[in-house]
């Protein structure tokens, strides 16, 4: 299976940056757009953003590293995010997270060796009345139980 993301290309990166440069406070918008295209924010893009927005490299790097969402390197083919916040904890989320970790053989925050699955914590999807909840590649899933988490993990491994 090929990646849904484009490989990094400086000209394409410059094009994306230029698209959003006129916006007020464009840095986050640009970082999101780059990550959407390439699956992560490639290192060479940082000085390009800085030069487009008349900022220092350090400033852009600071923004990039401040936010949990932005990736330095590509994630696994599938990203499974498990909600670890209080409402999901109250509904048994801790045990399900441990179960997913055991099934995948990795701790939260890591990618499997075959690069198929990245398992991440997320702090609240706003699905607190149908907890515990998760998100697989942007698809939300609620009322998780052992069977449903197993199915999600299996789907992610495919």
């Amino acid at each position, binding site marked *: 299976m090929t990646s849904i993301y484009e490989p990094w290309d400086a000209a394409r990166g410059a094009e994306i940056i230029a698209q959003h440069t006129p916006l*007020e*406070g*464009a*840095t*986050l*918008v640009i*970082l*999101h757009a780059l990550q959407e295209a390439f699956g992560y924010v490639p290192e060479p893009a940082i000085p390009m953003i800085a030069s487009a*927005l008349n900022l220092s490299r350090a*400033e852009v790097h*600071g*923004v990039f590293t*401040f*936010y*949990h*969402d*932005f990736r330095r390197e590509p994630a696994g083919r599938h990203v499974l995010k498990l*909600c670890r*916040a*209080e*409402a*999901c*904890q*109250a*509904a*048994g989320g801790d045990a399900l997270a441990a179960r997913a970790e055991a099934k995948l053989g990795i701790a939260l925050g890591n990618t499997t060796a075959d690069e198929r699955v990245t398992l991440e914590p*997320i*702090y*609240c*999807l*706003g*699905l*607190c*009345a*149908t*907890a515990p*909840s998760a*998100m697989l590649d*942007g698809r*939300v*899933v*609620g*009322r998780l139980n052992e069977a449903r988490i197993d199915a999600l993990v299996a789907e992610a491994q495919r």
Partner: protein
Amino acid sequence: MTLRIFVSRDAGAVAVGADEVALVLGLAAHKRGTEIEIIRTGSRGLYWLEPMIEVATPQGRVAFGPVTEFDASSVLDAMISGGAHPLRLGVADEIPWLKRQTRLTFARCGVVDPRSVADYRAHDGYKGLERALTLGPDAILADVTTSGLRGRGGAGFPTGIKWKTVAQTRAERKYIVCNADEGDSGTFADRMIMEGDPFVVIEGMTIAAIAVGATKGYIYIRSEYPHAVEAMNAAISAAKRAGYLGARIGGSGHSFDLEVRVGAGAYVCGEETSLLESLEGRRGIVRAKPPLPAHKGLFGKPTVINNVLSFAAIPFILAGGAKAYADFGMGRSRGTMPIQLAGNIKYGGLFEAAFGITLGELVDDVGGGTLTGRPVRAVQVGGPLGAYFPRALFDTPFDYEAFAARDGLIGHGGIVVFDDSVDMSKQARFAMEFCAIESCGKCTPCRIGSTRGVETIDKIRAGDRVPENIAVIEDLCNTMKFGSLCALGGFTPYPVMSALKHFREDFGAAPPRLQAAE
């Protein structure tokens, strides 16, 4: 005749199979040769019944739920025949859980098509704006003040005063910012209203713009809410096409443009000054106040920054409802609060009620206790920075001041229920851990204190010099509470101290002496 069927597109309903149900309904109707129209609405907020689907009948909309994809075709048969079905709930508006609410802000949520300006207008939408345009700024501000509305994000600051400050500040450019960075666990009202009735948020922001003389607005939505981002963007486009955004709104001399910006997974950006920094394209580092955002906010310009629910309350108030709104509530908490029941709860969802309802009524009566059927031991009110309340405090009325008097806060109105299997020292540790993960790093009590807090609670949990370490935690919480720049470091002590105070036995210490019921 075409059967009109309503299926929620709310993320909470989609997460439990609403899309699949809609798909099966379509296929089943095709097979039967029945003409149906599926309207994707928001959620009514009765999440334990989601996916809840409704059919238009002469008696009103009849609901069925919770419907799985396997039930969908038999439900369709019951809809066609009008016959009985085990999942039939009766007329939706008559469901007791819904009927006992006071839905002012959420009146349309789950009812209308969130993509349709026409449907919004057909359900009293834009009446507030139309009246606001005839009133002018001063009278709008007077109405907002009369309503007694206080900021629904958690701080409870009077909205009328905030708006008036911005209105009185001279500048060539002013901004309206909607804080939709709803990061508190146990809260989902912002998400629901953005997905289910986005025009009410747009209308509220537009009224604010007219009141203070702003021409540009931003809605900052957290990235964890892709469905809300999509719904708001679609609604903004629709409002522009209908002449409700852009130049000369509704044929008036006012112009107002609105844009969605997406956060990037930083909880602290729910704090207003951090949110403004983030909108400006910087690290979400908290700003010291003063200057207030009302004087120097986004890009240094006077800015109204309010929570989604504050803006969403405005159209009702401006449509002639200021006095009616103020007539609900108790003390200085006027109007209604969309309360969110979550966690280990039997009947979880959105319950909009006048201030004054007690915590016990909400948890036991409305919420039906825990889903696991075990006794309720603790509830956390107001998100990760809110206090844990034991059953002994269930007589606390839902009111800003009443919760503050008991060392808690109502915050954004989320209530997370825990059963008796909860380990409160673990929850206290999580509060510190969460603060450590999410701290912006600007002030020391929050940045360092949270990490020291985790370490110290770990020692307590390991039985290491428990009384001494509890004293350290209490001291640390005091420092964080009074020494932090914003609510993240300043309020993290609430869950920690409340857990210690009310559930001391979970910290390896002797339980507190029985306190007389207050």
